[in-house]
């Protein structure tokens, strides 16, 4: 058994290779925060008594978006927004379809659990290898995202008995997308020294933890998680 690698080295933030990869990863993050904002506002139309709280969450996402925009500017990078739009399209379309059908559970699972769990784990992995400016911003963001994850958990927990089946369907439709999206950016993430296996593993840990709290058993969650892992 060999020991750990020598002292961790940070990437060269000024290299063209880094900036090129960062233009896509940063764009995804910016687009993700924008989508999150829009999604929380949309969910508010389905549960009007929660609209105010959801609008509050949505405002936080816009604040995050501005923070990440500043990160790109700081490194002298232009975020590749067309790439990010295309990247989010399948998940965006699924969300819009569920919204049109009034499926609250699907919308919440997609935004408040799946996307938030993914964002949290990705931010955690990014923080130790981020440039000092982005590091500070991301540390602030990650604290907020836990609130959002928690919001989704609480709602689903309170309504679990009526939404179990829809949860499963929503998981099956959307979890594999997360894996595909991750694979699409694996090489860019690697340039930022974010390891694909770490990203997937930490995401699954966060996802499992959120669903355990909602009230699913570990066997049920393993079945759900397998939708992303097997095949």
């Amino acid at each position, binding site marked *: 058994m060999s020991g750990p690698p020598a002292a961790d080295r940070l990437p060269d933030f000024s290299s063209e290779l880094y900036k090129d990869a960062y233009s896509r990863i940063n764009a995804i993050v910016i687009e993700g925060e924008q989508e999150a904002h829009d999604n929380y506002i949309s969910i508010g139309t389905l549960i009007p008594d929660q609209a105010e709280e959801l609008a509050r969450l949505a405002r936080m996402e816009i604040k995050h978006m501005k923070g990440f925009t500043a990160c790109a500017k700081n490194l002298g990078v232009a975020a590749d927004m067309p790439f990010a739009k295309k990247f989010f399209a399948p998940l965006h379309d699924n969300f819009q379809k569920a919204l049109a059908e009034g499926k609250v559970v699907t919308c919440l699972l997609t935004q408040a659990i799946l996307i938030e769990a993914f964002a949290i784990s990705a931010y955690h992995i990014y923080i130790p290898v981020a440039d000092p400016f982005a590091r500070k911003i991301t540390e602030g963001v990650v604290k907020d995202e836990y609130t959002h994850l928690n919001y989704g958990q609480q709602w689903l927990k309170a309504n679990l008995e009526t939404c179990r089946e829809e949860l499963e369907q929503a998981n099956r439709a959307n979890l594999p997308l997360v894996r595909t999206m991750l694979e699409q950016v694996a090489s860019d993430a690697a340039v930022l020294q974010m390891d694909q296996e770490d990203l997937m593993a930490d995401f699954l840990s966060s996802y499992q933890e959120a669903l355990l709290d909602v009230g699913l058993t570990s*066997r049920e969650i*393993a079945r759900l998680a397998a939708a992303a892992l097997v095949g």
Partner: protein
Amino acid sequence: MFGLIGHSTNFDEARAKARSLGFEEFAEGSLDMWCSAPPQLVERLELTSPGGRTVEGAYIDSCFVPEMLSRFKTARRKVLSAMELAQKSGLDITALGGFTSIIFENFNLLKEQQIRSTTLEWQRFTTGNTHTAWVICRQVETNAPRLGIDLRHASVAVVGATGDIGSAVCRWLSQRTGVRELLLVARQQQPLLDLQRELGGGRILGLDEALPQADVVVWVASLPQTLSIEVASLKSPCLMIDGGYPKNLDSKANGAGIHVLKGGIVEFFSDITWQMMEMAEMANPSRQMFACFAEAILLEFEGIHTNFSWGRNNITLDKMDLIGAASLRHGFEALSLLPDSSAALATA
């Protein structure tokens, strides 16, 4: 509540176990999938001591398998994630079993106290090495006489003498048993010299020199695949305590007069309803377990919620006395040679 963090002995076994526990999808998955899989709290347990005290706990499978040992980041993440799950599950004292404590120590994970949003509280964890060392010593003291070996006239070789368990075994044997001679075997010279000075005795020898002179051999190092033991040169009788991990000494040394006993294994006085030990190749899985796991259970029985065994070379005789007394009080017994041991164990 106590916790046990374990893992399967190999990947095929892990898949079979997943299937038997109702994790069908994991059973189908590839090794890459298992590398990403989060740890699982798979079983909740309850034990009642002979005195009627009941404790509760849980078994966490880290979803690590030894096939992942070459992947440093994976192995590290598996151990830390399992510890995070133990802490978040409210387990007060959790033992690191099998490779998890070896990875923790070799990869110096003490530096990695922060995992995601969780700060690991070290006092919730124990390597279980104090109890393992005590059990191994007891196995030597109980079983040597059964083979006609009088420890006062015996040479005891400790292979892996400078490790956490090995050094504790040396300390105990030299101060508590009146062993005639300790043969100290380990890879690095300086720690051996330090140990010899601390013990005030013991001979430092290479493995090949030590084995033919030993009446008892305590193995607390993991055995290299390539190791071969010249069986004909060993003494007869020779008691070999296989205290390493994984336990594969019986495949390297067997023959007339050689008695291999699985070291660091204890048996509880009554049946435990759990599935996890069946796959750990215990002869009596409803009662037997690794002594390191039993340490967490004992600490829970005693209400000692602290990292009792932690770091390297911190095991004192006082601590061994304490955990040993608790072990006996709460219905554990160290695994012994069977009465017809020469037939049942030596030829395993």
